[in-house]
C-alpha cells in the first residue's frame, strides 16, 4: 500500500487529536488516584471482631500465600504485610492491620496490577472473603 501525502496528513491529524487524552507530565502520577479517596477506602477496608493483631497478621500472611503471593515484607509494630504475585503479570499488594476502637481491628488492602492501581471492588471483596474464611470471622463493611 502506498501512502499518499493526504493519508499521511490524515494519520498525523488523527494522532494529534487523540493526544490531549494523554498525560503531559508523568511526575503528576505521584499523588494521583483515580477514584475518590473515601470510596476507595471503603472498598479496601473491612472490620473484624477481634483485637489479636498478631494472629490477624499471621492469618493475612497465610491468606496471601494461599492466593499465590510471596511475602516481601511484614512489620508487626506497623501492622503491615506486603506481598507480590507473579503469574504472567505482577500483582503487588500491601495489607495493614490497625485497631478500631477497643473491640475491632481494621484491615486495609491496596494493590497494583502491573502499572495500574486496582480499583475493582470485586477483587478486594474476593480477598476479604478468603481472609474471613481463614479467620473464622465475618468481614464487616466500613463506611
Amino acid at each position, binding site marked *: 500500500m502506498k501512502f499518499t501525502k493526504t493519508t499521511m496528513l490524515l494519520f498525523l491529524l488523527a494522532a494529534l487529536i487523540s493526544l490531549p487524552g494523554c498525560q503531559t507530565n*508523568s511526575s503528576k*502520577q505521584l*499523588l494521583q488516584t483515580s477514584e475518590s479517596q473515601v470510596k476507595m477506602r471503603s472498598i479496601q477496608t473491612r472490620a473484624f471482631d477481634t483485637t489479636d493483631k498478631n494472629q490477624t497478621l499471621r492469618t493475612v500472611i497465610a491468606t496471601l500465600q494461599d492466593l499465590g503471593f510471596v511475602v516481601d515484607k511484614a512489620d508487626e509494630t506497623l501492622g503491615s504485610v506486603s506481598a507480590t504475585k507473579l503469574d504472567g503479570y505482577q500483582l503487588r499488594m500491601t495489607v495493614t492491620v490497625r485497631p478500631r476502637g477497643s473491640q475491632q481491628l481494621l484491615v486495609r488492602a491496596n494493590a497494583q496490577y502491573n502499572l495500574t492501581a486496582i480499583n475493582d471492588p470485586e477483587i478486594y471483596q474476593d480477598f476479604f472473603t478468603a481472609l474471613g474464611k481463614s479467620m473464622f470471622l465475618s468481614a464487616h463493611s466500613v463506611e
Partner: protein
Amino acid sequence: MYEGIAEVDILSASAGVMQDLGFNIDESETKLGLIVGSKERDATEAGQVAVAIVIALLGGGAMAIDKNQKLRLSLVVRPVSEDDKQKHLVRVTFQRIVWNTQNRITRIEGLEQPEIYQEFFDRLSKAVFLEGYKI
C-alpha cells in the same frame, strides 16, 4: 511537626496515606521511625508521543519514548528532642526512575516541586488528626 501523638500512631497514619495514594510498603523499621514505599505507573507523555509520531512519519523509524516509572517515597518520623517524646517531625522524600520503550532508564530524579510535598502533608495532617482522636 505533630504534637501530642505517639510516634507509632504517626507511622500508622502515614501508612494509611500511602495506601490512599496507591503506594505499596517496601520496607519499614518502626523502631527507627522509617517507612519506604513505592508504586509503578505509566510514564507516557503526550509531548514525547507527538514528537515520535512526527519522526516516524518523516521516515526516522521508531523513537524510544518513556513508558513506565517507579515512584519511590521514604518517610522518617523523629522526636524533636530527646526529652520530649510527644513532639515529632515528619520528613518525606520522593524519587522516581523512568524507563523507556527500549527498557533503558531515561530519568532518575528526586521530585522537588513544593506543591507535591504540600499536598502530601495536607493529607497526612488530616490522617494524623483522625488517628490522634482514634476516629
